[in-house]
């Protein structure tokens, strides 16, 4: 008697629970935003969940970009994939080629009848994530571009104008030498993301080709061409500057040692993502930070062109129910609204991905109150993108990034010269691109 009562009560509560759960469709979202960015990311999901009652977006932090992407792919192979996964820009080639595993965003929006206007997004962002017909494949989420940060106090101590960021590489060198000889700091500059900032963006900024077939946008048969004279000259300079202490290497990948060198006032200038802005300002209470565009070589025709983006987009993985897909579409619609985008942009330093979000931020007086916050947008929109500066798309690019780091290290260790290092990048990179073509062709 007693037992059956308990059983009945349990059954009733289980039923109640499941009824509650079925009222709301759960959307799993895997992301790679840790720390402060992670909190802001989770806040977006919370805000969306509070704004309606049909869907619950459940964000889940999955580690680094690489871990998140490979984790999602492993989950897909096991049939346990999330609805949405955040994938960094160099994974785009891999995701795009996986027809059948992903649902293109333009298709999702069409199927669910969600209003969606690709032309509302910034052209540089759309261009990077669209197929050759201009259809958007993934939802832009966090896009950034590398800019220059500098230490105004050190500039002043060295007798430089603290309001004047260096514009050219010649100025970077001259300023660095003055800073070092005056004893204001030990080193001139450092950089995060060598491959992204000092190769990919360097090429776009100087209108140099990264690969054939429009940097790989034109097809899988593309080949790398980063061993041209302009890039070779830049890498030779970096190696020579490293030798003299003008430049300090921050390590492979994101360059973990670069930020501390700038924060500790060891290096006076620092190139990294515009999304590092919040981190830079938080970690530099002792000095004033200035912002500038990336330096360029004056004598290179067409420089400065425009910089390209990095960061990540949200991909929809196949296998979700129709209800889940409708929820994903509603969530994407929410994410691209000007208010949400403007807030995200101002909180994090990522680019506002829509024109409306940029205009809203301007109207709110954000750029006037935060000098330097618009450097990234101006730099990206400096000139209409050419075939060389629209972005890049290569298969296996995650590994090619590693190769770029390795060859850069060999260059700095004096094992090869810049020509040799970049030739090796091209040769080893092309092997991987051919592998990718084979496996996906």
């Amino acid at each position, binding site marked *: 008697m007693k037992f059956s009562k308990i059983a009945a009560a349990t059954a009733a509560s289980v039923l109640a629970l499941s009824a509650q759960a079925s009222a709301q469709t759960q959307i799993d979202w895997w992301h790679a935003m840790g720390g402060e960015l992670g909190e802001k990311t989770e806040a977006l999901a919370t805000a969306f969940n509070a704004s309606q009652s049909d869907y619950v977006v459940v964000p889940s932090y999955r580690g680094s970009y690489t871990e998140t992407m490979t984790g999602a792919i492993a989950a897909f*192979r096991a049939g346990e994939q999330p609805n949405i996964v955040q994938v960094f820009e160099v994974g785009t080639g*891999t995701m795009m080629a996986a027809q059948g595993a992903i649902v293109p965003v333009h298709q999702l929006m069409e199927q669910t009848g969600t209003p969606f206007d690709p032309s509302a997004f910034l052209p540089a962002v759309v261009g990077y994530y669209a197929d050759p017909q201009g259809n958007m494949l993934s939802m832009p989420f966090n896009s950034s571009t590398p800019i220059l940060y500098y230490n105004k106090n050190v500039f002043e101590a060295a007798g430089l104008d603290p309001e004047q960021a260096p514009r050219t590489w010649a100025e970077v060198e001259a300023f660095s030498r003055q800073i070092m000889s005056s004893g204001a700091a030990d080193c001139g500059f450092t950089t995060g993301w060598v491959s992204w900032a000092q190769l990919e963006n360097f090429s776009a900024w100087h209108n140099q080709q990264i690969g054939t077939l429009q940097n790989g946008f034109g097809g899988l048969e593309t080949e790398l061409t980063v061993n041209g004279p302009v890039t070779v000259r830049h890498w030779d300079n970096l190696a020579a500057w490293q030798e003299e202490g003008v430049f300090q290497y921050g*390590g*492979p990948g994101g360059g973990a040692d670069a930020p*501390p060198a700038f924060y500790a006032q060891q290096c006076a200038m620092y190139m990294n993502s515009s999304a590092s802005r919040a981190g830079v300002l938080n970690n530099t209470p002792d000095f004033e930070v200035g912002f500038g565009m990336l330096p360029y070589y004056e004598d290179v025709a067409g420089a400065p062109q425009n910089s390209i983006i990095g960061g990540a987009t949200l991909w929809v993985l196949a296998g979700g129910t129709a209800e889940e897909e409708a929820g994903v579409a509603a969530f994407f619609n929410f994410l691209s609204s000007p208010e949400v985008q403007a807030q995200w942009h101002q909180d994090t330093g990522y680019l506002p991905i829509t024109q409306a979000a940029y205009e809203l931020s301007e109207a709110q007086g954000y750029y006037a109150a935060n000098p330097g916050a618009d450097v990234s947008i101006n730099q990206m929109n400096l000139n209409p993108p050419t075939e060389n500066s629209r972005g890049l798309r290569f298969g296996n690019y995650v590994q090619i990034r590693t190769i770029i780091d390795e060859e850069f290290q060999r260059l700095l*260790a004096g094992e090869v010269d810049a020509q040799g290092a970049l030739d090796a990048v091209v040769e080893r990179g092309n092997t991987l691109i051919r592998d990718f073509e084979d496996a996906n062709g």
Partner: protein
Amino acid sequence: MQTKRTIFGNKGLPYLLLAPQLIITGIFFLWPAGQAVYMSFLREDAFGMSSTFVGLRNYTRLLDNAEYLDSVKVTLVFSVATVVLALGLSLVLALAVDRMIRSARGYTTLLVWPYAVAPAVAGILWWFIFNPTIGIMPYVLENLFGYDWNHSLDPDDAMTLVVIASAWKQISYNFLFFVAGLQSIPTSLREAAAIDGAGPFKRFWTITLPLLSPTTFFLLVVNVVYTLFETFAVIDATTEGGPAQATNILVYKVFQDGYVGLNFGSSSAQSVILMGLVVVLTFIQFRFVERRVTY
């Protein structure tokens, strides 16, 4: 005299008793290993949407690949250096503790501590200590010896770092076994030799070391396997195989190519080769080295 024999009435019972062990071996070793062998003959895209049988191509390409052969060399240098350092230091420490009477317990506890530290945490500790920008060691080396330490650029510095970090992790384990081994050597033998006039070094080489050989041999096998497989976390946390693959040991390369590069065919072929290598090494150790061991 009667031989002791247990006779199971039920024919199935022995198999039933063996089953848990067999199931575990099957699920956690045979199945994945078989999967790896199978995958090593395929070429697949990252999502597993299409796969083609390519025969031995994954293997032939590896053996033609200069980076893979480099990784074999790196692994050899790394393993030998780590094993020698880990065994040598722990033997010295064990000998020292063996001579203590009252304080032995205290020292033993202290020396075992590092074993409780997770490999990834150990890696991060060493990464901090040797960090070229913020670490204490580069600062000391620079100021005392004028040595410019930079393991993110200098391959030798990087190798030194991962060897030290990996050996440090293993010293505690080796130390415990050596202490136990030393305690099982009868004192009377050493005393007799001392009475016969043998000095401490002579006693060590002719009595202690030979009698310790079963322990040393066991530790050799365990340490070689340790350097080949379990040093992954240390490498991942300190150098990530860099600079320019200078510390990219075989097991790390399996991870890099498979997990990061999503090239499952090549990665599987590499793990099959690695598995074969360990089987061969262990066989050699038991076949040839063990002959010199006195139990």
